[in-house]
């Protein structure tokens, strides 16, 4: 079993365990974040300040839009941000959720949607590979989000590249040779209110878990002292 397979198996097992824990209390990732909420309001963020997870290096909130902007079957979506220092948070990806609380797709949005710094490829990889899910410190939802990120850490970098390609294509004049003009065109595309989503990646959790867990000896990893779960690092 190579490192990448171990990584996928480990995080699949971790996610399955979290699903079972949520199922035991008739919950799921979205219901976890809506605990104690009487009325769900569109356009409002849950929790308002965002949920910190993965050792406080990541932040996420869930919300629903009045009009579906991302996926026709979507109930709402999580937005995930990562700490890039200097008290700045960069948007990483969105995670669409259906009416039964199941993930539908990952998506990358245009810059105007979330504002803030534009996340580059190298920093994205660093942040993604550093995601942890410490069961002793994190909420179930925090662990679920971390596991989803790690489970898709082979595909999300490609999605980020798709985002950048799509943005380049949206720029009005692709034949420009002047870098300054190209940057201007790109900045205009980033602020184009007609472009919300730049790239999407469909999620089939059942298929993913079956692929990673069936007909394989299950590996669980335990650590003494810190009790911190760190999966075998994948080689991408």
């Amino acid at each position, binding site marked *: 079993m190579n490192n990448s397979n171990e990584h996928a198996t480990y995080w699949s097992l971790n996610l399955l365990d979290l699903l079972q824990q949520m199922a035991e209390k008739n919950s799921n990732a979205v219901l976890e974040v809506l605990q104690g909420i009487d009325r*769900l309001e569109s356009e409002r963020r849950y929790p308002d300040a965002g949920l910190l997870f993965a050792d406080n290096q990541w932040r996420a909130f869930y919300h629903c839009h009045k009009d579906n902007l991302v996926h026709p079957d979507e109930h709402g979506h999580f937005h995930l941000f990562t700490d890039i220092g200097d008290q700045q948070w960069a948007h990483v990806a969105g995670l669409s959720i259906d009416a039964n609380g199941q993930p539908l797709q990952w998506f990358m949005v245009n810059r105007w949607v979330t504002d803030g710094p534009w996340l580059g490829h190298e920093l994205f990889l660093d942040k993604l590979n550093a995601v942890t899910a410490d069961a002793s410190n994190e909420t179930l939802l925090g662990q679920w989000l971390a596991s989803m990120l790690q489970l898709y850490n082979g595909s999300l970098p490609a999605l980020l590249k798709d985002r950048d390609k799509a943005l380049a294509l949206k720029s009005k004049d692709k034949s420009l040779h002047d870098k300054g003009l190209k940057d201007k065109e790109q900045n205009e595309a980033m602020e184009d209110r007609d472009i919300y989503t730049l790239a999407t990646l469909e999620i089939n959790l059942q298929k993913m878990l079956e692929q990673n867990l*069936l007909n394989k000896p299950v590996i669980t990893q*335990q650590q003494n002292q810190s009790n911190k779960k760190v999966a075998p690092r994948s080689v991408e």
Partner: protein
Amino acid sequence: MKHTQAKLIFAGVISAAAIAVALDHNRQQLPIAEDLLASQQAVIIIDEGEAMPAENNDECSKPVASSRSAAPCSL
């Protein structure tokens, strides 16, 4: 080694049924989002003799540019 002494434990094989059951039990209907922000109307109670609230002649009645509506999914 103080904190990274990992032990690999080979446990039983997970079945497709176990995955399906976990996912199925995780499917729970989510509440429908209400469009409260758009439909909510303010109720203003004015006592007898009090002045009516200004309609178009002060700063408060002017539309406010919201940073969240400019970037609807920002932190």
